[in-house]
C-alpha cells in the first residue's frame, strides 16, 4: 500500500505515477495502467481544486480480491448531489464535468461517500479477477 498527500498541484502527478507503478507491478496491462492513472489524476485534481488538500491511499489487497483499490479522502465542502456530479458535463467550476463520470467509466467500481460541509471519500477499484 501507499499513501500520497495532496497539498500542491504537483502531488497530482505523484499520485498518478505511484498508482500506475503499483498497477504495473500487479500485472495490469498498459491500457489498464493508463485508465487507472488517468482516473487517479482526475480525482486527485478534484481534491486539490475543491477541497484544497486531502489524501490518496492506494492498496492492492483487500477482501481477497486481486486488483487495485484507491481511496481519495478530503475534508472539503462535500458534494451536494452525487447523481448530478456523476453526470457528464455537470460542473460547479465552469469546467467540462468529465472527471467523475470519466473515472467511473475507466474503472470497475466507483463509490462516493460525502457529506456537505464535512468532506468526501471516493473509492475506485480495478480488478484483475473479473
Amino acid at each position, binding site marked *: 500500500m501507499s499513501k500520497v498527500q495532496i497539498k500542491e498541484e*504537483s502531488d497530482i*502527478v505523484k499520485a498518478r505515477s505511484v498508482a*500506475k507503478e503499483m498497477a504495473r507491478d500487479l500485472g495490469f496491462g498498459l491500457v489498464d495502467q493508463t485508465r487507472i492513472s*488517468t482516473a487517479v*489524476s482526475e480525482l486527485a485534481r478534484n481534491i486539490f481544486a475543491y477541497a484544497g488538500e486531502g489524501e490518496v491511499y492506494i492498496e492492492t489487497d483487500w477482501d481477497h480480491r486481486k486488483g487495485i483499490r484507491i481511496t481519495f479522502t478530503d475534508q472539503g465542502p462535500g458534494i451536494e448531489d452525487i447523481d448530478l456530479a456523476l453526470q*457528464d458535463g455537470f460542473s460547479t467550476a465552469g469546467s467540462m464535468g*468529465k*472527471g467523475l463520470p*470519466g473515472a467511473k467509466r475507466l474503472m470497475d467500481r466507483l463509490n462516493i461517500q460525502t457529506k456537505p460541509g464535512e468532506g468526501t471519500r471516493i473509492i475506485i477499484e480495478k480488478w484483475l479477477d473479473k
Partner: protein
Amino acid sequence: MTQSASIPILKLKEFLIVSIQTDLHDRMAEQLQYSILHRISETGAKGVLIDISALEMVDSFIGRTLADTAKMASTLDADIIIVGMQPAVAITLVELGLSLGDVKTAISLDEGYGLLEEMRAEESRNDDEEEKVGDAEVESETESEDGK
C-alpha cells in the same frame, strides 16, 4: 518556482516543433500553451507539431489545454498537429469522454510535417479563390451601375 523552460520549442522553416518529454503537471501545461502561442506570434509560424509520444496519460486537463491551444493557434493562422499519441492514451481519452475537438493528429513527425504542408497548400489555394471571387463581385457591381 517550477520550471517549464525545459520544454524547448524549435523552429523549422515556417513550422514549430515541440516535443514533450516529461509528465506534464497542470501549470506546466498552461505555461507550454502560453509559450507556443507566444512563439507563433513572434515568428509568424504557420504550423506547430506537438509530439506527445512520451506522454503516458492525457487527462481532462491536458486534453482540454491541447484542444484550447489548437483553437487559439488557428486564430493566429497556425495549424496544430498532435503527433504520436500512444494507443493506450487514445483509448483512455475516448472512455473519459473527451474529444480533442477538430485537432488533427499524426502517427509520426514525418506524417505530421507532410500534413502541415498539405494544409498550408490547400489554405493558400483557398485564399487565391477568395480573391478571385472578390474581384468578380466588384466587377458585377460596376456593371449594374453602368446599366442604370
